[in-house]
């Protein structure tokens, strides 16, 4: 297996705000190779990929709960998640309740591609499935958004791709394009590999670390005096003073966070990866704990989860009959229950991950989850059929990317307005699949990139607006001309704080 880019072990001293506050000299102090400097925006991006589609009645609130949707703009309806009585849905059950105020659940988001099983659509916006990219100039495509975000964050940031999979290769949803026109998935790490890469020899010279931190803290404190002195200069205008006041306030924040470093350390070392149903729970838990530790220690800013054991989810341990994939091609009640149970399995680890991020509290009371943006997505859309799947037997097994499963968690450092279900249905209807045609999924990706501080120039090719709205051979099979694409340089309505 080809190992991915090396994640540097350079950041060991953190302000409570996380990676932005590291003292990047320490790695050099300890004799390690210094890498690029730390990126400034104090935000993390995490993607959580789910496989094999879903049933709307398991994921979305009931029609009765959705009666309270209020129109907030063209093709945009909104409902506070906190206003839904009882569990939001069978999947978003009580385990989700702590995150209602920090989540954005989306309804009626449609992919522009045909869909079916694929690895790429979640982060690239377009399926890498058979023939989907025929006719597309792959060489000129930008990479998937996780890589664009990592590039923007700078400091040598590369995505950390974590997998739990049935195959020996594992899988990643992070894609690059080659000059020769190939679309290439980045390698993924199983738990034991991820631990080895991130935490082997994770030793810290505590004495040197404490001394250096104290020195930098002192320097910030000393420099602050000069900002204050300049701020009070009689020849400055009120506007100049206000600007310096802002600078001073941020210096104080820096000082506070340096004085209150987040404790960080390696998680428990996972066992060697074992291809057995009984080992899947521990493997998934290990990936969650590795990601949390990496984010807390600033060893990663972009993390992609690809937990898809498929046939390694079984009936005895997980309540999944015939494997996760097999169940997705079977509309029997047992198969539908298996899909629900597979979702409950992955959601259990997602909620644990979210909870651990949210338990990492900074001095200002915000948390590592607040600094983050977690994109939850599924390779395939709502398989419930034309009515939204309220009635049993109304299951389409369509494997098409309509009314897809997508949720954002975390406000991304305050960039996003959370706590709502946002329904982006249009007035167009279909005769099958989801009743209402929705808004394009690639606008979700653009919204994520905007929240992470990217600008259109960071993802556009040759100044052409858009990301992932490709016109390949699959074009005629898409609802492209009816799906609302809208402004390809702006947030989806209702998302921006």
């Amino acid at each position, binding site marked *: 297996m080809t190992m991915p880019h090396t994640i540097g072990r350079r950041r060991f001293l953190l302000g409570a705000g996380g990676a932005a506050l590291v003292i990047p000299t320490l790695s050099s102090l300890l004799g390690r190779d210094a890498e*690029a*400097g730390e990126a*400034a925006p104090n935000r993390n991006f995490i993607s959580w990929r789910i496989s094999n589609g879903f049933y709307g009645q398991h994921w979305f609130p009931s029609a009765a709960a959705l009666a309270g949707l209020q129109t907030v703009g063209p093709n945009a309806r909104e409902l506070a998640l906190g206003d839904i009585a009882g569990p939001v849905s069978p999947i978003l059950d009580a385990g989700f309740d702590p995150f209602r105020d920090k989540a954005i659940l989306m309804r009626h988001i449609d992919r522009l591609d045909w869909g079916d099983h694929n690895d790429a659509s979640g982060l690239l916006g377009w399926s890498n499935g058979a023939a989907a990219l025929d006719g597309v100039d792959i060489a000129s495509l930008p990479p998937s958004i996780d890589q664009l975000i990592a590039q923007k964050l*700078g400091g040598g940031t590369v995505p950390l791709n974590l997998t739990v999979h049935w195959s020996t290769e594992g899988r990643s949803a992070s894609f690059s394009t080659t*000059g020769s026109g190939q679309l290439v998935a980045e390698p993924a790490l199983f738990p034991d590999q991820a631990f080895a890469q991130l935490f082997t020899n994770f030793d810290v010279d505590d004495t040197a670390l404490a001394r250096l931190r104290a020195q930098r803290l002192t*320097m910030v404190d000393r420099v602050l005096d000069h900002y204050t002195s300049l701020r009070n200069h009689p020849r400055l205008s009120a506007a100049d003073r206000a600007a310096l006041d802002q600078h001073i306030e941020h210096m104080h*924040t820096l000082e506070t966070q340096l004085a209150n470093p987040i404790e960080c350390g390696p998680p428990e070392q996972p066992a060697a990866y074992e291809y057995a149903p009984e080992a899947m729970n521990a493997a998934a838990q290990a990936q969650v704990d590795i990601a949390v530790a990496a984010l807390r220690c600033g060893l990663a800013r972009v993390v992609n989860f690809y937990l898809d054991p498929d046939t390694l989810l079984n009936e005895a341990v997980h309540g999944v009959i015939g494997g996760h994939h097999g169940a997705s091609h079977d509309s029997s009640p047992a198969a539908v229950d298996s899909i629900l149970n597979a979702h409950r399995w992955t959601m259990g680890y997602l909620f644990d991950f979210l909870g651990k991020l949210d338990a990492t509290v900074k001095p200002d009371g915000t948390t590592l989850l607040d600094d983050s943006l977690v994109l939850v997505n599924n390779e395939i859309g709502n398989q419930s059929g034309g009515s939204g799947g309220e009635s049993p037997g109304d299951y389409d097994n369509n494997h098409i990317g309509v009314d897809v499963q997508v949720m954002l968690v975390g406000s991304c450092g305050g960039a996003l307005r959370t706590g709502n279900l946002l329904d982006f249905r249009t007035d167009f209807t279909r005769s099958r699949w989801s009743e209402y045609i929705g808004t394009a999924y690639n606008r979700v990706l653009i919204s994520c990139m905007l929240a992470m501080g990217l600008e259109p120039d960071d993802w556009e090719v*040759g100044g*052409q607006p858009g990301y992932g709205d490709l016109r390949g051979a699959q074009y005629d099979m898409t609802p492209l001309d009816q799906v609302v694409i809208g402004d390809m340089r702006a947030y989806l309505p209702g998302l921006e704080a």
Partner: protein
Amino acid sequence: MRSSTRCGSPTRRGAWIVAVFLTGCYAGAHGDGGDAGTAADDGDDTGADTAADTGDDGVDTDGIPSGCDADTPPAAALLRMHRDNYVHALESVFGAAALEPVRATIETLPSASMGVFATEVPPVGFSEVSAYFNIASQLAFDLTKDAASLTALHACLGSVPPGADAGSDACLVGFIDTFGARLLRRPLTDEDRSRFAGDFAVGGAHSVGEGAATVLVAMLLDPRFLYFVETEGEEIAPGVLELTSHELAARLARVLWDSVPDDELLAAAANAEGGRLEGDALRDQIDRMLDDERARVALSRFAGNWLALDVMPQPSAALFPDADAREAARVAMKAELLDFIEAVTLDRDGTYADLLLDRTASFDAPELGQIYGVTPGQDVTLPDDRAGLLTRAGWLATNEVIRSNAGHIIKRGRRLGEFLCRPVPPPDPGNFPTEDPADPATNPDVGIRERFNAAASEPQCAGCHQILDGHGAPFGHYGAAGQWIDVEQIDVDGTAVDVSIDAASMLELDDVVAVDGARALSEAIAASDVGPQCLAEQLTRNIVARPLAESDGCLEQTARLALAPQDGAPQSLRDTIVALVSSPHFRQVTLP
């Protein structure tokens, strides 16, 4: 669901008509330096019209143009470094190689492209303060991490004994004086020295290297490094400050180099007679600076902002099927245009008219040769269908028009409006037509000009579109990549249909003029006051780094008089820059 309404829905027509009426599609342009995004918002009049109002092009003996308020120089303002200033300053002091570990972090700092033309930067955010800290911390550590690094940084540092006092050790005093003067852009005071000696002691208690590091961190976080502080001059009249020679030197380096003063400029400031850097000593420094490579970098940054070249589309796949060729063409288009402006300004002593009319080009890319129809090379004379910058591929490039080889008439019209500081406000996004008028699918019998004419015929659209279309029409014979086209070729169900191009237009410059293409348009602008006036505004805005105000009038008029005097020959662009930075109002500020 889809509306056929173009430009305005009935409910919004009233507001749109009012907006057009109020702006006349020109309002605010003179007052805002051509930033379409804010022109209509503030409508400030900067005094830019003052000279035109008086018609007085005289220059007083003290270097202040008449017709402006000589007693009120530009308002004092505390400017923060933009990214280019910051990186050039660090490179100048520590060398480019030292910055490699922090390049990615530097990229997160705000660039100078906020606004179309100015060197404005947004209010500081926490992420930037954090970045400043991380960069300072990393740089300081790398520069002092071992004996070899210390020696490379400052030769004697490697032999300073542990526990040395930075207030008395000659090497440490020299180290602090040297780097303090470069980073703070003036000689240190005794108070500064004492302070930095204290900073040394913070790390110096452990080792000389850590002491030197804490000094560098202090300097790199100092407000007098990150901000251009201009508070120490003499009050030469009530409320009017004359900059110190070092503040003037820093301002020169900021404007001419996007950087900080080098040792020679600092020395000139230190040795200035009577503490005033002026006369021959000043002129020598300005000439030296304009001859330096750093002036080209700064001019290129200015021109990129001026012409909004930050986003340049690739040519179409129809022109260059190979993706690498498209990207090569895109890069070459931008580079050639910037090189052209540099050459006219700094090598050929060219005038504003030369910018508009000179056909000389230098480039290597065969893709650009294909667009221009010439063999690549140095100082190539472009064909007769080209003139100056407005006919260069880098300026002409627009997004590909679907099913057509034409350039986008509206995008070019809008660009020309900005080039003339007469921006046309965009329509309300909610009123934007649902079908793209550029697409010939629904109207395949006419050219792009007529397609937009039909699409924008409603009263709520026509006002601005008459201007936009009129501005864009003269460029009709240039395809989306700037290549010459005799006819517009439209794809109608797979069949190519030729449509004739009408490049004739009537435009309002000083007066209404008729042109029959881009060359005639360039000649008309070169002969007008409108173009030079606009460039004068942009050059002034580049100095003050904010939207222009009335107190900037004399600076602006200095540039305008140089570029387009009513009597006599215009000065070269280089001499215009010299006149600006030699102007009394370049060295004076009005206190708040």
